[in-house]
Structures are given as structure tokens and as C-alpha cells.
């Protein structure tokens, strides 16, 4: 049996600790969760590379000033081997103007949809490329998080004592690419205090505007071959911000960050310089004929670009979302599209979700990859697939 996120012993210890603390912490308890069966058929290869059963459990308990939350999950894939993990396991302490959260947790920042700009505190689970549900694509990290509230302002600080990298597809996965084989050998930074990550954010929540400014000192979630011939994890500093406001019938969103002195993979071992990188987004949300629509433009730019850097100097991506519901919201149609510009490629994600009854949803759709091997979506053109899933919430 393969256990990836935590060992059996750790999980068992966590459960025992939880059971021991439970009566003291929790006055009342709630057990919720989701069961999901998911299958995908690739059109090009006429195979069924994805058949996955998921159990996702959320155990919550409340005390007078505390909350405890434990979120284990089990994925069982085509090979029949369970992948057991702990997405979150944390304790909250609520004081009048301060919330404190300690433990394994996912942190979500920013205004971008389907794109990560200032939302870089939690690493990503890329085992299914970017196709996993938004909630599941963010990995839990061991962290201490404090939120201090002063009127419309909130100051949030996150300290991550031990770096956790993004999770990449296994070598047998249809999402695995040859470049990934070198990444898996990268050595993680030691658990020394100096290797911890820290982030801070000041946010404003008001009638006219929601706004955030953030900064952090982090590790890149994926290793790079920067100096020397081996891939390694590198540090960088980040500063950024986001806002949203209404403009008549539109909601305008924007988010931007500068990653300072970031290391990039060089095509060949060579004297390498770190570069600043700018990453920004502008987006609009609006309603039309009862449907929700959204459009985003995302731009990336490497400052003082060096031709030997493997990444492109500029990156341009657009996203579009159209969503409408029918039959008293029991039937939902959605199209989410990523469009890569130069090289042109795309990922189109049409879906249909039908609520069979309260808490039971059937979903079917397609993941359509368009473009050639140069594009970040086009490289997966062989993986264009149709899928169906059944979710049962309790």
C-alpha cells in the first residue's frame, strides 16, 4: 500500500491525539464529506486512463473559543491502491480581534480565478495537471496563521516552518512529461528555522472596494536548474496586491505581484543570474441574460531577460467563463476556457452538472486540449477526454 502525504503512523498518531483532545475542545461535532466516482475516456487513444473513487471527510468540532477541523481523504485509482492523505488538520482559537490557526491548512489569497499570482502560500497538487477541483488543487501546509482585525482592515501573518513543494504527477500518469523526471530528484531544503517561509497580508473590506497588499519570503514550489546541472529548490521574495470593485453592472478584479530575484531554469549549465518577474491579471465579471460571465487577461514578464533562460520572456493567457443554470438551478452548464497566446493553444472545459437530488450531483463534460507541443496546454493534446462523475455529499 502506498501512502504519500503522511505515513500510517503519523496519521494514526494524529487521529489518537484528536480523539484525546476532542472532549476538551469540542462541545459539538459535525461530520460532513463527499464521495465521488470519476472516470475519463481519452478520445485520441480510446482508453480509460482515469477511474478514481474519492472519499473526502471533514470532521469539525466547536468549543466556546475554539474550532477543530480534520480533513482526511482517500483516492483509489485504476491500480486499486489507496492514496491516503490529510488535506487539513488544524485548531482555531478565536479571540475578540484575533484568530489563530495552527496545524495543516490550505491558504487561499487573491482575486484571480484559476490562476495563482499572490495565491502562492499553499503549493499545488498537480497530479491531474490543473483539472482538479479548486478546493483539491491547493495542498495543506503545516503553518501558524494569525488574523488580526481592526475595523475594515485585517492583518494576516502566516509562518510555514517546513517547506512543502507542489506535488507532480507520477511517472505512470498521463500528465507526466519527460521534463518532470529530473524534478523529482531535487533535494528538499532542511528543516532548519532559516528555511521556513513567511507571508504577510493587509486587507481592506469595504463598500466601494476590497483590496489586499501582500509580501512574502518563499521557496519556489518547483525546483529549477539554475546553477550547476542539478535541479534544486530556490528562494525568492514576493510583493503584490489585488482589488475588486463594482463598475455599474460589472465587477472589476485585478491582481499583480513581483517575484524578486527569482531563479529560472537555464537551457544549459551557464553563469546564471536571478531575475525579477512580473505577474499580473485584470478581470471582469458580469451577468447577461441570467448567466454569469467572466473574462481575465494574465500577463507575465521576466525583467532583464537572458536568452539562455528556458522560460519565455513574456507570457500571455486569457480565461473565459460562461455559466448558466436551468430548472430551478438543478441543471448547470459551464464553459471555462484557458487561451494561451504565443504560442496559441487552449484548454476548453465544457461541463454539465445535474443535481439528481439534494446533495447528489452528476457531472459530465470534456477536457479539450488544443495546440502543439510548444504550448502549456497543447502539449497535452493527446489527453483530450470526456469524463463523467457522480458526487454524493453528506
Amino acid at each position: 500500500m502506498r501512502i504519500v502525504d503522511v505515513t500510517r503512523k503519523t496519521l494514526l498518531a494524529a487521529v489518537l491525539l484528536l480523539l484525546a483532545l476532542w472532549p476538551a475542545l469540542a462541545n459539538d461535532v459535525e461530520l460532513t464529506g463527499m464521495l465521488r466516482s470519476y472516470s475519463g475516456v481519452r478520445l485520441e487513444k480510446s482508453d480509460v486512463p482515469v477511474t478514481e473513487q474519492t472519499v473526502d471527510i471533514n470532521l469539525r468540532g466547536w468549543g466556546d473559543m475554539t474550532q477543530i477541523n480534520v480533513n482526511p481523504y482517500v483516492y483509489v485509482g485504476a491500480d486499486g491502491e489507496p492514496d491516503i492523505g490529510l488535506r487539513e488538520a488544524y485548531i482555531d482559537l478565536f479571540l475578540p480581534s484575533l484568530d489563530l490557526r495552527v496545524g495543516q491548512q490550505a491558504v487561499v489569497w487573491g482575486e484571480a480565478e484559476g490562476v495563482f499570482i499572490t495565491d502562492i502560500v499553499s503549493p499545488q497538487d498537480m497530479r491531474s495537471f490543473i483539472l482538479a477541483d479548486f478546493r483539491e488543487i491547493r495542498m495543506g501546509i503545516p503553518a501558524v496563521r494569525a488574523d488580526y482585525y481592526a475595523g475594515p482592515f485585517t492583518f494576516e501573518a502566516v509562518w510555514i516552518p517546513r517547506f512543502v513543494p507542489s506535488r507532480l504527477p507520477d511517472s505512470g500518469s498521463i500528465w507526466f512529461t519527460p521534463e518532470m523526471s529530473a524534478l523529482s530528484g531535487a533535494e528538499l531544503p532542511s528543516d532548519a528555522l532559516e528555511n521556513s517561509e513567511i507571508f504577510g497580508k493587509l486587507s481592506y473590506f469595504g463598500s466601494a472596494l476590497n483590496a489586499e497588499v501582500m509580501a512574502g519570503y518563499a521557496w519556489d514550489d518547483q525546483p529549477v536548474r539554475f546553477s550547476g546541472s542539478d535541479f534544486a529548490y530556490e528562494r525568492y521574495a514576493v510583493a503584490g496586491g489585488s482589488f475588486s470593485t463594482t463598475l455599474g453592472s460589472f465587477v472589476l478584479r485585478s491582481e499583480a505581484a513581483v517575484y524578486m530575484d527569482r531563479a529560472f531554469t537555464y537551457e544549459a549549465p551557464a553563469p546564471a543570474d536571478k531575475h525579477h518577474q512580473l505577474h499580473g491579471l485584470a478581470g471582469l465579471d458580469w451577468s447577461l441574460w441570467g448567466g454569469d460571465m467572466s473574462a481575465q487577461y494574465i500577463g507575465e514578464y521576466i525583467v532583464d531577460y537572458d536568452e539562455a533562460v528556458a522560460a519565455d520572456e513574456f507570457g500571455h493567457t486569457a480565461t473565459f467563463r460562461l455559466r448558466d443554470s436551468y430548472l430551478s438551478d438543478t441543471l448547470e452548464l459551464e464553459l471555462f476556457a484557458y487561451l494561451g497566446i504565443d504560442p496559441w493553444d487552449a484548454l476548453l472545459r465544457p461541463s454539465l452538472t445535474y443535481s439528481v437530488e439534494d446533495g447528489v450531483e452528476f457531472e459530465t463534460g470534456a477536457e479539450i486540449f488544443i495546440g502543439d507541443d510548444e504550448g502549456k496546454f497543447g502539449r497535452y493534446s493527446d489527453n483530450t477526454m470526456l469524463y463523467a462523475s457522480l458526487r454524493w455529499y453528506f
Partner: protein
Amino acid sequence: MKEKFTKLLTVCVLSVIGLTGLFSQTSGLEVMENVYNRPVGEAMSAELVMTITNSRGATRERSIGQYSLDAGESDKKIMFFTAPADVRDTSFMTWSWDDGRDDDQWIYLPALRRVKRISSDSKNDSFMGSDFTYDDLGDRHPSEDSHRIIGEETLMGEGCYVIESIPVGKGDAFTKTVSWIVKEKWIGLKKDYYDRRDTVYKTLSIEEFEKIDGYWVVTNMLMEDNDRGSSTRIEMNDVSFNVSLEEDFFSERQMRLGPRR
């Protein structure tokens, strides 16, 4: 001379009576302002059960905890969805401004773990798949319509003004509404929504109202969509005005935390 004085006095008295009658006649706008300004307490909490019945008679139920506060310049409301499981932990917050400017609205979607600002332009959209729109559940400002009294009728044993209201601006789903407003209590007992064909496409009926903690409260209402053949009933339970709510309860923090305080 005496006859001339008598005529003048008669004209004056009749004028005063006429003017008095004119001024005492309640206008449609006054009625709707009385409804809008009806005392509803500074703070309120309630548990709502929303039952949606489709045209085939199948029903779905949603449970919502609702909290509201008169915060001076604005009315703030937050709704926490507690059931069924697929919408649990979703919350919706509105700040409605007394000066008539557009509402501020946010939704917290637990799947995204994010509080999203949404446009108040979606006021004609269905509220969580029900026959109510976001506008139906908000406090529509009287200045958004022109009002006139078109009659007086008795409904549920109550004397009512019948008010026709026509939207002043564009962008509403209806071309006019006709409301039955209980005199002195200033509660609407029924509301017909008209479309461009001047037919009633939707009807709101108040089936129960009662005085709780000194305030009139609608505790059971039914919205029927005549075009779709569907209906939605909202029952309000555990209504309380003796609730201590601070303005900072209506915040992004609380939307994430849920109704626990």
C-alpha cells in the same frame, strides 16, 4: 353685507374642508414609504426554511440562518446556508444603503474558500434556484418606482390599500407590480408581478404574519411562478429581535466562520 360675509365664510370653510381632505388623502408613495420605514427592530435573527416545488410537484428544501442589522446609513444582512450538504457553509451578505445607491453584495463559496464581490445587477436572478429573485428578498427603495393607490380591498380580514407601482428606471424583470398593503400595519399581504403582456407572471402571498417582540413580522410567504408552474415557500422560525449584533458581525470574517458567534 351680512349675506356677503356669510358667503365668504362658507367659501372659506368649504376650502378648508376641501384642503383638509386633500391633505389627509394618503398617496401611494406615502404608503410605500410607510412600508419601507416600518419599524423592524435594530437587529434580528431568524431560521428560514425555503421549500422549492417544481412544476411536477417535486420539492427541495434549504435551511438558512439569517441575521440583519439597521446600521444607520445602511441595512446589513447576512445569510448562512446550513442545508442541504451541497450548499452547506455558503453565505451571502448584502449592505443596502438608505440613500438608494446600489447594494453591495458578496458571496462566500466554500469550494473556492473565497469571498467574492458580486454585482447587484444580478438582482433579477433567481435566489439559490428559488422563485424569489435577489430583488424580491431585498428592501426595494420606494424611489425606484412611481406609486399610486388604485383601490381599497379587504384581504385576510384586513383593510388594505391596493398600490400600483411602476419602475422608474430600466432593468427590472417586471413592468409593474400591484401590492395589497394592510392599513396602519404597513405590511404587504400580496403582490402581483406583471410582464410586458400586462399579465401576472408571479404572485407573492403572505400566509402568516405575527407580532414578535413588538414588531410585525411575515413568518410564512409563498411565491408562485405562473409561467413555470413552480413555487417557493419561505417559513421564518425562531425570530428574535432580542439579539445582540455588532456591525463587525457583517464582515468577510463572519462569512467564512459561519453563524457561530
